[in-house]
């Protein structure tokens, strides 16, 4: 059987949207949000293979699933986020919970557990985090001791506590990270196990439709074949192996939630008449609250798709890329939702309108699956290695690629994106020479600059494609205008913030660095930006009409 094709993927998205329209209207979401209630019946229904079977996307074909690609799952995650990030998070927890099995399970384990998850509408949780072990799992305290019978290892006795576990209080099956004698390892625990209990459902700022709970493991005995992979000490590498992929899914959450809030604002702005005309026609409104977010979200999508296609093409890991996607898309989604509240004025500040809820919900995407500060560090560490390994050529080469793109397609802003990338190469090199990465602040800030510069390159490429990905929904001219605006903004940011970063951390002046930053060229290429933003604003009103 072939993989899912685009038509099938779009039909699945249609089914999901139709289901949400009928079963998850705003009033229902609002009521559950207010009551801090996890709508278990909805999740079970979504996992009913006769109704929808959304979870099948992550289960390989041989175990009764659909074997969805990264691209398929990114699209579904985005669509889920547009509906409700709490429900999305609960589905995602099942995705995450099955990952250790997928990556490290033995054939028999996969067959047994995956088939059950496919067919029995089971909720799954991924239990790694503890009070003292978040992104840094070195302090993992949950233990799994050997249970020996007649000199033979027959099982493990698990003791410890977990925290912030999505689906923790409702999952039927949990994959639990615990320290076995041979090192951190994943175990499968069923909620019926003696000694297992979940704490109360947390009273959260947002994603209140998703169950989040602390877990207690008190002398729980699991059979030896519940150790994933049946070899101890593989836990951390099994967790690391999927970060590129799982973080891309959180990126899709930021993207979906951001667009949902932004589109609400765009539609509102067409109907809100002030001072003789709709807000949608006022630059002071659109160029601050709408257009910049549309551009950043479009850049986020371009980057997510670039990474998804690489993962689907067979590349592994891509942890730095996953981190860039997650960082940039969730920051963009969070800011878009924040400004959507502003765009709706007083209405935006009430619970009667969705941006208020979306804003509370989307904030979690900047926190879970590694906080965005951890992302900045991961990005910087990854690319720092590339910078060193290539002797400073990594971004110079990427800039050359942009220059070549500019020669072929001069209207996507690739020339100024190239300036940004060269400026980045210079900043990194200066940081190396001056040994500035000893400052954590410098490292993390570089992570942010890297994300900006690389999303600009991704958008330039996406906008210059002969067949622009239909997921963007915009025509060629709009995509190219967005690409130019993004390239200008990021190049300017990378150069000026990079300069500030280095200047602020060295004792002497950085005159040579400032001269090499091509600032006059970057400034000159800002020409036409307002006109491009005018064009994007008018196009957004066309693509997103008020009902």
């Amino acid at each position, binding site marked *: *059987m*072939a993989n*899912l*094709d685009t*038509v*099938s993927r*779009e*039909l*699945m998205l*249609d*089914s999901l949207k*139709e*289901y949400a329209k*009928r079963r998850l209207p705003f009033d229902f979401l609002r009521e559950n949000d207010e009551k801090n209630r996890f709508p278990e019946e909805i999740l079970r229904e979504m996992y*009913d*293979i*006769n*109704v*929808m*079977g*959304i979870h*099948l*996307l992550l289960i390989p074909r041989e175990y009764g699933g*659909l074997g969805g690609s990264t691209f398929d799952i990114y699209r579904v995650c985005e669509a889920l986020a547009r509906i409700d990030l709490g429900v999305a998070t609960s589905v995602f927890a099942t995705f995450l919970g099955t990952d250790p099995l997928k990556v490290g399970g033995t054939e028999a384990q996969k067959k047994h557990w995956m088939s059950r998850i496919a067919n029995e509408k089971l909720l799954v949780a991924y239990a790694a985090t503890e009070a003292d072990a978040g992104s840094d799992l070195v302090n993992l305290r949950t233990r799994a001791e050997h249970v020996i019978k007649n000199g033979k290892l027959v099982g493990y006795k698990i003791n410890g506590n977990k925290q912030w576990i999505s689906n923790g209080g409702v999952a039927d099956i949990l994959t639990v990270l615990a320290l076995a004698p041979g090192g951190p390892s994943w175990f499968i625990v069923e909620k019926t196990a003696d000694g297992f209990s979940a704490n109360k459902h947390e009273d959260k700022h947002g994603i209140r439709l998703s169950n989040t709970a602390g877990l207690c493991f008190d002398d729980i005995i699991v059979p030896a074949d519940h150790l994933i992979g049946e070899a101890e000490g593989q836990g951390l590498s099994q967790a690391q192996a999927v970060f590129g992929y799982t973080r891309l899914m959180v990126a899709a959450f930021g993207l979906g939630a951001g667009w949902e809030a932004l589109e609400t604002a765009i539609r509102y702005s067409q109907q809100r008449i002030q001072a003789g005309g709709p807000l949608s026609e006022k630059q002071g409104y659109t160029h601050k609250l709408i257009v910049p977010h549309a551009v950043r979200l479009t850049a986020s999508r371009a980057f997510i798709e670039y990474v998804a296609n690489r993962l689907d093409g067979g590349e592994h890991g891509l942890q730095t890329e996953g981190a860039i996607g997650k960082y940039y898309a969730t920051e963009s989604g969070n800011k878009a939702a924040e400004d959507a509240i502003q765009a709706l004025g007083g209405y935006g500040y009430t619970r009667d309108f969705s941006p208020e809820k979306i804003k509370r919900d989307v904030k979690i995407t900047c926190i879970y699956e590694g906080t965005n500060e951890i992302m900045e560090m991961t990005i910087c560490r990854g690319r720092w290695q590339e910078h060193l390994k290539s002797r400073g050529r990594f971004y110079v080469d990427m800039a050359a690629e942009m220059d070549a793109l500019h020669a072929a397609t001069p209207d996507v802003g690739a020339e100024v994106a190239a300036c940004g990338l060269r400026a980045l190469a210079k900043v990194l090199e200066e940081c190396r020479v001056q040994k500035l990465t000893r400052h954590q602040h410098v490292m993390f800030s570089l992570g942010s600059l890297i994300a900006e510069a690389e999303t600009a390159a991704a958008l330039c490429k996406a906008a210059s494609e002969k067949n622009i990905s239909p997921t963007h*929904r915009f*025509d060629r001219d709009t995509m190219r205008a967005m690409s130019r605006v993004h390239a200008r903004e990021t190049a300017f940011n990378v150069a000026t913030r990079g300069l500030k970063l280095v200047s602020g951390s060295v004792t002497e002046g950085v005159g040579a660095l400032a001269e090499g930053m091509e600032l006059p060229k970057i400034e000159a290429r800002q020409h036409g930006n307002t006109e491009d933003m005018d064009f994007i604003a008018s196009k957004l009103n*066309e*693509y*997103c*009409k008020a*009902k």
Partner: protein
Amino acid sequence: MRIVVCIKQVPDSTRVKVDPQTGTLVRAGVPSILNPYDHYALERALEIKKHHAGTELVVLSMGPPQAVSVVRLALALGADKGILLSDRAFAGSDTWATSYALSMALKKIGKVDLILCGQMAIDGDTAQTGPAVAQQLHMPQITFCDTVSVSGRKLTAKQYIDGGYQVVEAMLPVLCTMTMPHDYKPAFPAFLNIMAAQDKPFETWTAQDIGADTAYLGLEGSPTRVDRIFAPPPREKGQVFEGSAAELAERMLEILRQENVLKP
């Protein structure tokens, strides 16, 4: 038994706006859907199939290559085979030319016992194509059906007429056009069925494949000439009167007399 359901991909007209300057439809950002009347017809056909073992349900559509998505949707919902008529020669066909193409395809399909069509497509609202197909095939037709059932070679249809409905019986083969209840909610397929639809038989046929004479196809072969398209002027606002019940009754009488509804 073989049932063919004729389906069409249409813009979701509930979300289409008319450009006030040019009078044309603004299609940007508007999704394409399976025409809801066709969707309903398909569901009725699936119901018949459920009660008649060995029934083959074929869906037939005409449109650009991207119309494959409505055919695939029909397959995911339970149709057995999909056929898409797609060829530049079909472009610009009016309802008569379209019905000619569909009837040629139906002849190629072979023995067909029942043809179901939606009453009309929500983009054009003509309600002509289904009846015209029956005409071209010299087949009896029952229009405006709400439900249909088959027993042996006999079809029973509940057909809406002015002021109520009538129950009509016909011998197969017959063509029915289906209307839909006002609160109809189209079924959507589960993910597994969408996947399975990828492997069901699907064919794209050109004008040549169905042996159609291109003189009867496309703009050339279409007798309809569109004079102009315009948005109808908005309806004027009604008058609102306020007052006590007695005053309002008096006011109403006065208006009815003015309009010559009542004798002065």
